[in-house]
């Protein structure tokens, strides 16, 4: 809880530059969504890289991690590492489960009960 010792008496200009950078990156994200980079995976990776760049700017400058005690960065990064472990193992599971123990997860069709009475059974996948 001793963040305040570190960032006194410096110019607020870096904050303004950070804001401008964040706004530009937001524009880039939206623009990139309209460009087809070959596959949806590539598009997703690009969007996530830009988001991570923005998140790093917020964490380092707005949240003062750059000038803060290292322990705070360690706490912050540890939560991201554990999140990565969760995501990683879930992905491995999703990828390999069908081979080990077939569940037919991808074939499951949600019953029409979700939309009572009026719903025609298994509506045709009409893309918008």
């Amino acid at each position, binding site marked *: *809880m001793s963040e305040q010792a570190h960032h006194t008496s410096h110019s607020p200009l870096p904050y303004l530059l950070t804001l401008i950078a964040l706004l530009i990156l937001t524009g880039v*994200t939206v623009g990139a969504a309209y460009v087809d980079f070959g596959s949806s995976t590539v598009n997703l990776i690009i969007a996530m890289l830009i988001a991570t760049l923005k*998140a790093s700017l917020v964490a380092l400058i707005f949240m003062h991690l750059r000038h803060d005690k290292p*322990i705070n960065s360690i706490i912050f990064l540890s939560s991201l590492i*554990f999140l990565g472990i969760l995501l990683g193992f879930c992905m491995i599971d999703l990828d390999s489960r069908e081979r080990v123990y077939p569940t037919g997860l991808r074939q499951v069709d949600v019953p029409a009960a979700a939309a009572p009475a009026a719903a025609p059974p298994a509506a045709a996948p009409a893309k918008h």
Partner: protein
Amino acid sequence: MWLFLATEILMFGGLFVGFGLMQGVYPEAWVAGHHHLDRVLGAVNTVFLLCSSFTMVMAVHYASTDQKSKTVLNLGLTLGFAFAFLVIKYFEYSHKFHDGLLPGRYFNLAAIGGPPQQAMFFGFYFAMTGIHGFHVLIGIILISWIMVRANRGDFSSAYYTPVDLIGLYWHLVDLIWIYLFPLLYLVS
């Protein structure tokens, strides 16, 4: 404070992982579902939150340099952006209620057409943006509270920890939205 922020990340993280996995299983439902979201409104909300983060950090800066009126002004601007965010969110939500995109038995597939797993997409959408919106609401209450205290002259360069910590909380709310926006609104 950072430990609390770590728990927040892990709580939202569970939702992000679930969202990502189901996107991998039902990509066509995800693409169909995201067409019902308004990219322009999402982008405007992103801009509002980024600006509010900026005014928040300026408030912390002015609090740490004994400039009371500027602290109060910047906290007020932060509140303004936060309210603007929630107003847009309200219009987005009411539009979706009207379209029958609510989760569970209120989800009306017949009205929108497309893959039935869209119900899951909107389940994630409402859970993630709902919890995020709730955080914005809590942030508004907290910022109002320190605004009153700043106006009363409670803070100085010797003591401004509440402004600093609520600032950190507010930046985290912004940070989560930075990921929510491309994931929900910009699926391809």
